[in-house]
């Protein structure tokens, strides 16, 4: 593995008119890893990725991809990267396999098109014009086009958005194999389970900056939480009284309860004891670590943007 990162973004600023999309963003992505870039809509994920792909010129800051400037050294960089856009990118009248074959012809050592199309389920719709493909087929074609040139780094912008579970699985398998083959993968997603499953490293972007980065394990932390379901509107103050001072009690959704504290058997007994006292059966009682989604919501807030 190379010591220098595959992607290195320092102090990136990108404005559209008077709106600042990316506001001093720093991000380093190690070679040979899968990195998931998470963030609410409008956080600056796509702008950041597209700056790395050479589509946008930074207003300030520096971007190096495989050690190259994506704009000034585009000619050297393009053959080495694979790109999957969020949507589009194919002639409306082009047939699926025709477009994949064409993309392959632009590279020196492309993957064999047939097996790639087969494993992504594109062989059955290979003669269908792009405009008549389903959304999922269009996504899978875009993914195939991103990897057919045998790149060392691929950028996948929401690769599984709108996919059915089978297609999502096929996409995950391909990403896992790319990583095993030494390809660096950078993907954006809104699906936290996808990031937890696939990513070595997660970067959470909000308001144009990276607000957290690390392995999913690191981000989830070691704090555990206790959850249970019951009737909505239980007396949380009463429950608080039987727990240690540091414990936090919440009802994030009606009838769904969460206790955050240093968990041990005594705490569990205190909670279930209180439930017995008030005559409530704690349903789906579970002790678990925070999920990546909890971390994400804690960091980026719960209100809609």
């Amino acid at each position, binding site marked *: 593995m190379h010591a220098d990162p595959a992607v290195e973004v320092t102090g990136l600023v990108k404005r559209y008119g008077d709106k600042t999309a990316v506001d001093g963003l720093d991000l380093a992505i190690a070679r040979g890893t899968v990195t998931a870039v998470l963030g609410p809509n409008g956080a600056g994920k796509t702008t950041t990725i597209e700056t790395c*792909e*050479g*589509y946008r010129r930074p207003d300030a800051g520096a971007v190096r991809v495989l050690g190259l400037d994506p704009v000034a050294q585009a*000619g050297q960089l*393009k*053959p*080495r*990267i694979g*790109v999957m*856009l969020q*949507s*589009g*990118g*194919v*002639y*409306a*009248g*082009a047939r699926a396999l*025709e477009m994949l074959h*064409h*993309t392959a*012809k*632009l*590279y*020196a*050592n492309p*993957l*064999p098109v047939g*097996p*790639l199309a*087969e*494993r992504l389920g594109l062989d059955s719709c290979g003669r269908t014009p792009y405009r008549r493909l389903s959304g999922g087929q269009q996504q899978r074609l875009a993914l195939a*086009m991103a*990897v057919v*040139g*045998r*790149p*060392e780094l691929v950028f996948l912008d929401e690769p599984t958005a709108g996919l059915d579970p089978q297609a999502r699985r096929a996409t995950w*398998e391909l990403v896992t*194999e*790319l990583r*095993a*083959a*030494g*390809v660096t993968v950078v993907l954006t997603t809104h699906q936290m389970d996808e990031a937890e499953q696939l990513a070595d490293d997660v970067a959470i972007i909000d308001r144009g900056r990276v607000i957290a980065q690390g392995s999913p394990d690191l981000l989830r932390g070691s704090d555990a939480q206790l959850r249970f379901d019951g009737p909505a509107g239980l007396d949380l103050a009463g429950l608080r009284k039987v727990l240690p001072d540091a414990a936090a009690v919440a009802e994030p959704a009606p009838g769904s309860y969460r206790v955050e504290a240093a968990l041990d058997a005594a705490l569990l007994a205190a909670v279930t004891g209180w439930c017995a006292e008030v005559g409530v059966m704690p349903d789906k009682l579970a002790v678990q670590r925070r999920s990546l989604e909890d971390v994400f919501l804690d960091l980026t807030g719960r209100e809609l943007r």
Partner: protein
Amino acid sequence: MTATDLTPRPGAAPVGRMLLAQTALETRMLLRNGEQLLLTVVIPTVLLVLFSAVDVVAVDGPGKRVDFLAPGLLALAVMSTAFTGQAIATGFERRYGVLKRLGATPLPRWALLTAKTGCVLVTELLQVLLLSGIALGLGWSPHGNPLAVLLLLVLGTAAFSGLGLLMAGTLRAEATLAGANLVFILLLLAGGVVVPLAKFPDAVRPVLELLPISALSDGLRSVLQLGHGMPWSDLGVLGVWSVLGLAAAARFFRWE
């Protein structure tokens, strides 16, 4: 599921191979598109046959009706492919992110534009063969220097390509679709294609003569119908349009 060897082996294809593949793809896309074929093949052919056979428009100059009409419809063929067809196709490619996506491949931008030009030239060659064949069948007797004809067609293509790409690269795809068709019809009627410019009032004629379609149809007619030498003034008009159109397209074209 078959295992695929995904080990990186990055590299661009030789530029000649990319150019050939891109030109072939662009040409296939054009020939597969029904509306484009209507514009590039059906309309010029129908006009040529109809107006040669039926005395609807008063033609000008010596020879048969087809001797006046054939040069005008060759000019129309160039406009339909280099301007209208190219503008509409490129406008929608821009809208659907095709230009953007190709921008992430090793294909350089100049090669993409060269492939588009190649596609236009291949289509024009087919159009010229088809229209000339039909015209000859209708008794057309062309005169003049083939080199002058070739020069006119090439400069006409450059002028219309610049204007078409300018439109495609700056307007919304729907606006390009509507605008390019409107311009096609206006220039068909007012650019000396089937209606002689001599039929227009003296006040507007000098302006109409400066249109690229007028320069192209007039130049082709002066060579093919009248057997004149190099039509320098028409070539000059087309040259100016080429420089202005291509420079403006290069300056203002937006890829996304």
